[in-house]
């Protein structure tokens, strides 16, 4: 699964996710990526989220929307909201990670898995940064 979250110079947030799913998937199985609120979600002023992991748990825990609701309802910072959400997914048995971006354009990533490829760039730091966790 691949994903992107962005804040533009008008302050709008957006999110996108794309995936091939799981090797050997059967019966038309669909994970969280195309489900708005589970694998992908954005709302101006709150957050933009793209997730990857064991989709069934991200669906059941409405992970992408949960990050935004934690920001919106509990006034959590984006990093705390991302971390708390991925821990919540983990508490019901789900593995994976997500990237999120808050209204200020600060990116956050949270993971309860063992690895994730990530990258970021911004007008404040126009140097490409990539990381493999």
């Amino acid at each position, binding site marked *: 699964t691949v994903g992107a979250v962005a804040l533009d110079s008008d302050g709008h947030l957006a999110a996108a996710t794309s995936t091939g799913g799981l090797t050997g998937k059967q019966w038309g199985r669909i*994970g969280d990526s195309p489900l708005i609120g589970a694998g992908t979600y954005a709302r101006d002023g709150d957050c933009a989220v793209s997730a990857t992991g064991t989709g069934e748990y991200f669906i059941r825990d409405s992970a992408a929307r949960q990050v935004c609701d934690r920001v919106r309802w509990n006034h959590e910072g984006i990093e705390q909201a991302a971390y708390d959400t991925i821990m919540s997914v983990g508490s019901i048995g789900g593995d994976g990670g997500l990237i999120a971006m808050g209204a200020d354009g600060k990116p956050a990533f949270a993971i309860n898995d063992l690895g994730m490829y990530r990258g970021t760039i911004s007008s404040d730091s126009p140097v490409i940064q990539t990381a493999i966790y």
Partner: protein
Amino acid sequence: KHWSLAIHGGAGVIDRGDLTRAKDAAYRAGLAEALKAGQAVLDKGGSSLDAVEAALKPLEDNPLFNAGKGAAIAADGKTYLDAAIMDGGTMKAGAVASITRTKNPIMAARAVMDKTRHVFLAGEGADAFSLQQGLEQVDPSYFHTPEREQMLVDWKKDHTAMINPTHMYG
């Protein structure tokens, strides 16, 4: 003007020891290409929506990542692709699932958002919609890579989807 972009290329059990220097560099190059594509939109004052779509296309075209070319292969030997996009400003969203011929699935998701009053189209109907929208179509074999085909062979041995330690999850 302030803008920001972050991307992910998936998650999995990545043992750095397994990741050769060349593979590490290849993954980072793929991520960098995606960041540049998004940066090109945002630097010109373009929308975050256009930027996330632009950033995903190189990742969908890159066989290293599990989306578009190089996607995981299902039990029946076919590739079924899913994608979604959401505009935080309008709260509009578009998504497709189980599409089989659109070269860049994120463009199909974007078309659902822009050209219909729906949010989520799936399967044959989504394929037909993508064709009707004039999105670039490819033969399903375009998405297959030798690595993914080997993973399916391995999966068939014991039916566990966690085959490729580099990309254990979707």
